[in-house]
C-alpha cells in the first residue's frame, strides 16, 4: 500500500503543478478574456530559466555553456521573472488586436520557442536537454520523506496563487479586468486604459505559469524539449474549462480531475484487456470529455458566481483608480 501512496503522491504533485498553470490561465481567460493558446511557452521559460540558474557549470562533454549553480530559490524567482518578461514581449504585438490574433500568435510563439530549445545547444542543451537539476533542500530532508515534502511545496504554491487570485477578483483591478472581458467598449467609455490592464493581467498569468515551470523543473530534475509540446497548453485548457473558468476553485479542481483522468486511464488495459488500442482510445476519451463538457456544462463544474447587474455597475464605476 505504501507503493500506491508513493504513486499517488507523484500524481498529486503533477496535478498541483497543473493547478498552478490553470490558475495562471484563469487570470488570462477566466478573468480578462485573453485567448492564450501558448501557455506552455511561459511554463517552458520558467523551467529552463531555473534550470540554467541552478545547474552547475558544464563539464567539457556537456552541450550547454551556462550553468550558474545558484540556490534553488534564486532559480525559481528567476524563472518567474523571465516568464513575466516573455509575457511583456508577447503582449506588445498582440494585446491590442482582436483576440483571435493572440490565440494564433501565442501558439506560434510556443512553437518557435520549442524550436529554439531544440536547436540552441549552448543555452538549453538542445534535444539532449539539461540534467541533474538540483532539488530544494535535497540534503536536509530524508529521502523517504522527500516526495511528501515536495508535494507540500507544490501545495503551498497552489495556495499562494489561489489566495492571490481571490484577492485579485475582489480588488478594483480585478473588477476592471472583468469589465474588459465582458464589454471592452464600455470599459473604454469609462476611461479605462484597457491595454495596460490587459498587459498586467497577461504578465501575472505568465508569472504563474513560469512558477509552475520552475516547480516542474525541480521535480523532474531533467528537461528536454519533448516535455513542452502544445499538449500541455491543451491539457491546461481542458482542466480550466471542465473545472469552470472565472473561478479559481474551478481551475484547481479541473486541473486535478484531468490529471487524475490521465493517470487513472493507465489502468484501463488491466480492466478490459483492450490491449493495443488503449493509448489512442485514451486520447479519444479526453477529446470527448471536452466536447461533452462544453455541450452540457458550458460553465464547468464550478461556474463563476454571478454578480448582480447593479453590483457589477457599482463596482465598475467606483472600482477603478
Amino acid at each position: 500500500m505504501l507503493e500506491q501512496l508513493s504513486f499517488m503522491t507523484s500524481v498529486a504533485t503533477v496535478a498541483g503543478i497543473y493547478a498552478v498553470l490553470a490558475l495562471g490561465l484563469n487570470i488570462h481567460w477566466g478573468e480578462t478574456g485573453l485567448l492564450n493558446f501558448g501557455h506552455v511557452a511561459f511554463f517552458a521559460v520558467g523551467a529552463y530559466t531555473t534550470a540554467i540558474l541552478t545547474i552547475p557549470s558544464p563539464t567539457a562533454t556537456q552541450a550547454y555553456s551556462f550553468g550558474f549553480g545558484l540556490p534553488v530559490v534564486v532559480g525559481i524567482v528567476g524563472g518567474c521573472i523571465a516568464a513575466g518578461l516573455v509575457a511583456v514581449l508577447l503582449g506588445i504585438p498582440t494585446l491590442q488586436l482582436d483576440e483571435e490574433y493572440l490565440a494564433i500568435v501565442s501558439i506560434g510563439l510556443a512553437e518557435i520557442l520549442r524550436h529554439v530549445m531544440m536547436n540552441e545547444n549552448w543555452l538549453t542543451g538542445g534535444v539532449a536537454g539539461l540534467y541533474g537539476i538540483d532539488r530544494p533542500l535535497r540534503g536536509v530532508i530524508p529521502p523517504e520523506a522527500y516526495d511528501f515534502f515536495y508535494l507540500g511545496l507544490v501545495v503551498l504554491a497552489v495556495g499562494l496563487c489561489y489566495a492571490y487570485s481571490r484577492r485579485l477578483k475582489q480588488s478594483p483591478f480585478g473588477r476592471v479586468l472583468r469589465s474588459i472581458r465582458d464589454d471592452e467598449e464600455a470599459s473604454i467609455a469609462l476611461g479605462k486604459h484597457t491595454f495596460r490592464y490587459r498587459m498586467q493581467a497577461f504578465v501575472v498569468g505568465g508569472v504563474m505559469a513560469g512558477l509552475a515551470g520552475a516547480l516542474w523543473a525541480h521535480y523532474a530534475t531533467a528537461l528536454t524539449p519533448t516535455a513542452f509540446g502544445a499538449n500541455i497548453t491543451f491539457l491546461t485548457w481542458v482542466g480550466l474549462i471542465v473545472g469552470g473558468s472565472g473561478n479559481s476553485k474551478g481551475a484547481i479542481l479541473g486541473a486535478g480531475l484531468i490529471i487524475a483522468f490521465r493517470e487513472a486511464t493507465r489502468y484501463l488495459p488491466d480492466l478490459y484487456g483492450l490491449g493495443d488500442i488503449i493509448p489512442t482510445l485514451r486520447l479519444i476519451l479526453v477529446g470527448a470529455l471536452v466536447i461533452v463538457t462544453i455541450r452540457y456544462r458550458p460553465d464547468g463544474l464550478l461556474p463563476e458566481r454571478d454578480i448582480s447587474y447593479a453590483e457589477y455597475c457599482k463596482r465598475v464605476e467606483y472600482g477603478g483608480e
Partner: protein
Amino acid sequence: MVNGDKQVDRRTFLQTTAVAGGAFSVAGCMGGGGSDTAVLGMLQPFTGEVAWVGESSEVAMNIAVDQINEAGGMNGTDIEIVTEDTETNQQTAISALRKLTDSDGASAILGPTSFTLPAVMDIAQESQVPIISPTAGTSVLDDRGGNYIFRTSASDSLGGKAMARIARDNGYEEIAVMYVDNQGGRSFGQTVIEGFEALGGTITTEVALTPGKSSYRSELTEAFQDEPEFVSLTAGTQTGQIILDQWDEQGLGGVWGLSNDMQTDSFAADVGAPLEDSYAIGPLPGGEKYDEFAAEYESRAGESPQPFTPEAYDAAMLAALAAEAAESNSGSDLAGEIPAVSKDGETVTSFQAGADALDNGTEIDYDGASGPVDITSQGNIRSSFAVFQSTGSEWEQVGEIAADSLDF
C-alpha cells in the same frame, strides 16, 4: 459562456464523474503488483510516429518472458509484463515510470528510447529500479550509465564512428551528413562528422531535419548542393523512406550510408533498386541464437524482426538472469548483477541454462540474439558492427567493423 437550458444538473454531473473516478482508483489498487508474480515494466512509445518501437519490442519481450516462465520463472515466480506508453513525451514518461516503479512494483524496466530516457534516468535511480534500454542510443548515456541505467543497444557515438569508418574505408573523401533533429539523430550525426574529420575527410554540408515532415526536397537540395558521393543519413524508417523516395525522384545520385534503424529487410525491399550499392550499419547478426529468435518473432508478428527487437529480448533475459544471480526480484538487488551476468563466465544463451549454472555457483556470460551483449561498468555495450550493402532488394553483409577499431 452561455447558459443554455439543456444543461445537465450539476449534481448529476459531479456524481457521474466521482463514480467514474472512484472506479478507476479501485481498479488502480487491484491492478498489478500482486505478490505471486514478479513484474517487468516496459516503457516505450505506443502512439504517434514511433509507435512501432513499442509494438515490436513488446513482441520481443513477450517471447523472452514466455521462455523464462516456461523455465520456472524468475526465482521461481512467474513474470508479468506491464507496458506503459511514453507518448514520446517527457512528462508522460515520468508519470508512467512512477506508475511502474511505485504502483506496479516493477523489478526492472525495459526502455525507453533516446527521446525520454535521459529525462527519466534520475528518477529511476532515486527509485532504485534498474532501466535496461534496448532502444536508446543517445551519447548522453556514454558516461552517465552504470549503477541503475543500462542498455543493450549500441551507443550512437560508436555507430557514428563506424559510419565514418565505412565512408573512409571505401575511399570517400567528401561526404554530406543528414540527420533528424532529435535526441537519437543528432548525437549519431555529430559523431559521424567528428569521426570523419578525425579520419582526415571533409564534410561538405550538414543538414539537420525535422522528423515527421512530409517533404524533404529542399533539405535534399541543400545536402546535395556540392554533389557529395556519399551521404550519411540518420533517421527512423518512416522519415528515412520519404527522404530516399524523394532523393530517387529528384535523381540526385551518390550512395547512402544509413544508420542501423533502416537496416531492415523490409526497408531495403521497399526502397528497392535505387538503394543498390548504398551502405548501412547494423549489429553483427547473433548467429544461431538470432535465427531462433527471428523465427519465433516471425511466427508471432508475421514479419521479420524490427530493429531493436533482439536487443529487447536480450534486455528481458539479462534482467531475469540478474535476478537469479541476486536471488532476489527486488530492483535494487538485481541492478548490480546486470553487468556481472553479461560477461566473464560460462557462456549461456538461454534462461534455463543460465539459471542452472547460477544454481551450481558458476559465473555466467549471457550471449543473446543481438550478439555477445557485454555490459560495461558504465552500462554500455561495446559491440562490433556489421557493414551491409544493398543488392537492390535486400541487405547483404559485406564486412565487419571491430569495436577496437573505433577508438579514435
